[in-house]
């Protein structure tokens, strides 16, 4: 399967693509009444790709956690709650 990077695409394009695979079996893209392609969810990737993505995610998280060593758990919990509340407040308005 060919791969096309959308790293440099406009934010609206990235959001469109991220919102597409909202169905376990994938989504067909239709243009002028013709199906022009099928968008599969990430869960349909090969084992090698899946393992690589999971490994990378874990590395990133371990690095992020290292930055906060010594910070009290309660402080981090408070900050996270404040951040979540801020985003949800914006969504309600």
């Amino acid at each position, binding site marked *: 399967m060919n791969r096309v990077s959308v790293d440099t695409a406009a934010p609206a394009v990235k959001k469109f693509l991220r919102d597409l695979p909202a169905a376990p079996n994938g989504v067909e893209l239709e243009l002028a009444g013709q199906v022009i392609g099928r968008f599969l*969810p990430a869960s349909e990737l090969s084992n090698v790709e899946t393992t690589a993505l*999971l490994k*990378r995610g874990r590395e990133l998280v371990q690095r992020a*956690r290292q930055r*906060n060593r010594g910070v009290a758990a309660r402080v981090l919990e408070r900050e996270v709650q*404040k*951040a979540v509340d801020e985003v949800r407040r914006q969504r309600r308005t």
Partner: protein
Amino acid sequence: MITAILDTNVVVQSVISTSRAAAARTLDAYFEGRFHLRYCPAMVDEWLDVLLLPSMRTRHGMTDNELQEFVASLLVGGLPFPGETKMSALLTRDLTDTKFLSVAAESKANYLVTNDHRHLLRLKRFQRTAIVTPARFLQALAKNDG
């Protein structure tokens, strides 16, 4: 395989907390393949919106591309659902929480893992989905593993 929906507060806390925190151990369990995620686009948008806030950026230190990689690592071990099933905001007392119940209804996930005591945890269960804290979820995983 156990299936679970993770509230945004659990996802974000799991990234920036020390490895001993229950939220962090929950994410580690996901990376170890001990459960499958269920999610919807609105949840993914919210994870990113919170992780992109300056206060959270300072904590996790990831670039935009690294954040995308992190989110991709969450999507790869899960199944997407529309999250569009109509839910009354009266259920959760907060309109922004209804997406989690929509995915619970659509996916029939075993657990919704959250730290939201104000709205979600007080429900205890929604249809087939138990609503639990990360600590309680880890207990359920351990029981399932054993």
